[in-house]
């Protein structure tokens, strides 16, 4: 008996984008509901002010990136370079010699802006981060615990509800 195929649900941003086949003489293909996504990344090294780095949908081309930024975000673009970055390959210690790539490859677009400059903003400027909050809470809790211990150091072998 052939097993029944179960369709796995894939989130929208991961799905394959299908375009109709273009043949000579057809009207230009226009996109009304674009499926592509772009996310901005902090550049890994020091770059000039007018350079921005994006991680983009793997099916996007350079022209797509340019049109996306110009039409949707209203940012004029001078040049786009796209790079496919492979993820790190890993080996299982039980099976040496067999490599696999746990994460898919990324497409990264380096964009130079035409008119404006962009500086990476600091989101936690003059603000406490979550890590700071956690450290504070931990310190407070430990202090309280120590106090409790000092109070009840003689009765440690009793259960806590009886001290």
């Amino acid at each position, binding site marked *: 008996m052939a097993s029944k195929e179960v369709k796995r649900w894939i989130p929208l941003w991961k799905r394959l984008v299908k375009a109709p086949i273009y043949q000579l003489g057809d009207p230009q293909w226009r996109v009304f509901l674009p499926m592509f996504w772009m996310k901005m990344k902090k550049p890994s090294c020091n770059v000039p002010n007018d350079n921005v780095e994006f991680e983009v949908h793997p099916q996007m081309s350079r022209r797509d990136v340019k049109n996306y930024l110009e039409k949707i*975000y209203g940012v004029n673009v001078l040049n786009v370079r796209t790079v496919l970055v492979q993820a790190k390959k890993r080996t299982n210690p039980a099976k040496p010699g067999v490599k696999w790539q746990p994460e898919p490859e990324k497409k990264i677009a380096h964009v130079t802006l035409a008119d404006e400059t962009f500086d990476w903003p600091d989101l936690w400027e003059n603000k406490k*981060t979550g890590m700071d909050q956690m450290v504070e809470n931990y310190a407070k809790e430990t202090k309280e615990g120590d106090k409790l211990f000092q109070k009840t150091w003689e009765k440690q072998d009793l259960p806590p509800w009886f001290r």
Partner: protein
Amino acid sequence: MTTCLTRSVLQISRNFIGNLALCATNASRVICQSNLTYSSRHIGPVSSVLTQQLHTSPARHGLLEFFDDKREWGEQKAKAGRPWKVEELRLKSNSDLHKLWYVLLKERNMLMTMEEEYNRELELLPSPERFEKVEESMENVLKVVKERDRAYNLLEKGETGEPGGYRDTNILGQKYWRKRRESVIPSFMNKTFMARHDHLGVWMNKLRRREIEQKLRVRTKALRRDRQRKENLKRRYPNADTD
């Protein structure tokens, strides 16, 4: 600002629930904009009913639209509404859906960048379920657009406009359901396609007969197993109903 706009758009639907606390802050700003634009065009008295309409022309902030609103930066919590329902979207016009799509797209991009940034700083993104909410409303928009397309095609052409499928035989003569799909040349001109699909040869008869045999065997075995089980039960409990 995109985020502000998205929130205001999302909050129109939230008004019905009665969560007006958030709506007041964002909507007031938008109303001011619309008031200004309206007064510049018309000389006569401005009616309060018209000015209270939500005006959603974008205030462009360029690349900062990839980030959340400045007031939300570094906060521990983020408030968010619920996703758009299909029933609500069915009431909207096509142009409204088109605008909403771009709002949602920008919101999703923003959430992606923020998640990346928060991860880089080893922080937790406040209310990460926003991403799924946006995705759900995007899928609902797509659903509604598809419904409308279908209805239009049924009215105009009498067909759904979907590709559909047909029963085809593969290279071994097995039958299967094949989806109709686009091709550069028509299938009857494609020699390799014609050789592989819907082409029964004499040499396949043996395979096809065996396939039928196997299916029958599986069916008869199942029937026999069931009958045997019933007989055993009857022998054990003679007065019971076996069916």
